[in-house]
C-alpha cells in the first residue's frame, strides 16, 4: 500500500533550535496514528507542517502522492505557490488545542461558513450538512448559540464539526482535550472515538490521553527531542515499551 502522507527527511528549526530532526514518517490511508511524547518534542510542529502552517527547512512531504511544499514542474522540484497549497489543503483538516471558533458567528454559521465560502455550496445544502454534523457531535440543540456561551467541551465539538464538514481525507487533532477542564474531556474523546471507528478517514492524533490512544490507534509513535524514538502497535508501545525513554515517559501516566 502506498502511504497517504509521507514525511521524507524532514528537518524543521526555529532559529538555532532544531525541532524536528530528519524525520521519515509514513501514514497509510485510513490509518489512525497517535503521536505521544513529552511536550516540546515536536509533535505539534509535525502536524503544522502537514497543515501548511509551517514550512520545513529541508526534506519533502508528500500527500496523496503529490508534493506538499514542492511541486514538480517539468521534472524539476519548485517551491509550491499559493494555488498549489490551496489545492493540497482540500485533503487536510485540523482541530486545534484552543478551538479557534469564529466568535462573531453562531454555532451553525461557524460550521456552515467554509462550505459556503470555500467550497461554494448553496446555503441550503451547507446548512443541512452543518446541522447533520452538529447533530453527530451532540450539539443539535445549540445551533443558534454563540461560542462565548459554550463550555470548552462544546466549543471543541463545534470545532470538530467545522473541520469534518469540509470532508478532508486526513484529519489532524492537536491535543484536542488539553485545554479542557477534566470533567469535559470525556465528551470530546467520545466524539473523536466515534468518528475514528466509523470513518475511513486517515487520522493523526496528538494526545496525552493514553487510554484513548490505546483504544483507537492502529499505530502509536513516540516522539522525543525531535525524533520518532519508538513506534508500534498500541500493544507494543504501551505494554512492551523498548526504549528507556518511553518507559520513563509512560511511567508518569501509570503511577
Amino acid at each position, binding site marked *: 500500500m502506498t502511504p497517504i502522507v509521507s514525511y521524507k527527511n524532514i528537518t524543521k528549526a526555529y532559529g538555532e533550535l532544531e525541532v524536528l530532526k530528519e524525520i521519515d514518517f509514513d501514514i497509510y490511508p485510513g490509518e489512525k496514528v497517535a503521536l505521544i511524547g513529552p511536550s516540546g518534542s515536536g509533535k505539534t510542529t509535525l502536524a503544522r507542517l502537514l497543515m501548511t*502552517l509551517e514550512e520545513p527547512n529541508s526534506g519533502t512531504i508528500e500527500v496523496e502522492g503529490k508534493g506538499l511544499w514542492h511541486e514538480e514542474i517539468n521534472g524539476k522540484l519548485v517551491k509550491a505557490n499559493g494555488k498549489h497549497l490551496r489545492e493540497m*489543503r482540500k485533503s487536510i483538516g485540523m482541530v*486545534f488545542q484552543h478551538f479557534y471558533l469564529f466568535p*462573531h458567528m453562531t454555532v451553525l454559521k461557524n460550521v456552515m*461558513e467554509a462550505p459556503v465560502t470555500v467550497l461554494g455550496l448553496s446555503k441550503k445544502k451547507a446548512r443541512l450538512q452543518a446541522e447533520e454534523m452538529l447533530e453527530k457531535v451532540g450539539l443539535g440543540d445549540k445551533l443558534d448559540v454563540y461560542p*462565548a456561551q459554550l463550555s470548552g467541551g462544546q466549543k471543541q465539538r463545534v470545532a470538530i464539526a*467545522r473541520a469534518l464538514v469540509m470532508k478532508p481525507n486526513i484529519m489532524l487533532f492537536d491535543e484536542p482535550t488539553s485545554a479542557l477542564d477534566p470533567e469535559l474531556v470525556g465528551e470530546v474523546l467520545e466524539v473523536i472515538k466515534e468518528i475514528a471507528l466509523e470513518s475511513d478517514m486517515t487520522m493523526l492524533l496528538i494526545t496525552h490521553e493514553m487510554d484513548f490512544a490505546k483504544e483507537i490507534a492502529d499505530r502509536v509513535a513516540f516522539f522525543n527531542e525531535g525524533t520518532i524514538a519508538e513506534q508500534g502497535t498500541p500493544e507494543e508501545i504501551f505494554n512492551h515499551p523498548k526504549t528507556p525513554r518511553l518507559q520513563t515517559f509512560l511511567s508518569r501516566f501509570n503511577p
Partner: protein
Amino acid sequence: MWNWDYAFSILPQILAALKITVSATFFGFLLALLLGLILSILIRADIKAVSLAVKGIVQFIRNTPLLVQLYFIFYVFPQFGITFKPFTAGILGLGIHYSTYLSEVFRSGIEAVPAGQWEVVKALNFSQPQAWTKIILPQVIPPIIPVIGNYLITMFKETPLLSAITLVEILQTAKIIGAGSFRYLEGFTIVGVVFFLLSYSSSQLIKKLEVRLGKSN
C-alpha cells in the same frame, strides 16, 4: 448686541450651506475609511519594500498639516495639469489625511484578532480575500467603531479649513453674510452652535453604541 430677528433671517442660508459641510464630511470620511483599510493591509504585506514605503507615506502625511495638503491639492496640482473643483479637492484632502489615522486604528484592530483565527482560516482553506471579508474584518470592525466615530467627529469639525480652498461651506457662508451686513456675531454664533449640536449628539450616539458593543462581547 444680539438681534434675534437678524439671526433668524440668516439661519436658512447657513443651514443650506450645512449640506456642503455634511456631504464633504461624509464623502471625505468614506474615502478615509477605504484608504485607511487599504493602507493598513498594505503595511502588513509580506513584501518588506511595500510595507516600508507605505509606512513612510503614512508618517509623512500624518506629520504635515492638513491645510498644507489642501493647498497642494488645490493650488499646486493644477500647475501639473491636475485640476479639482474645491469640493473634490476638499474630499481628497480630508480623505487622504484622515486615512493615515484610520489605518492606525485598523492596524491595531487587526492585530487584536488572535493569531489562531488566521491559522484556522488557513486550515479551512479560505483564500486571503475570503478570510479578510468573512472572518477577520467582522471581528476587527465592531470594537473599533467608537474610535472611528470619534475621528468622524474630529473631521467634521475640521471642515471649515476647506474655506481656505474657496469652498463655500458653513463658516465661509457666515463670513460672507457678515461681510455684507457688517454683523458677524449672529452668523458665527449659529455656526458654532450647529457644530456643537451635531458633534455632541454624535458623540452621545457613539457612547451608546460603545456600551451596546461592550455588552455583546
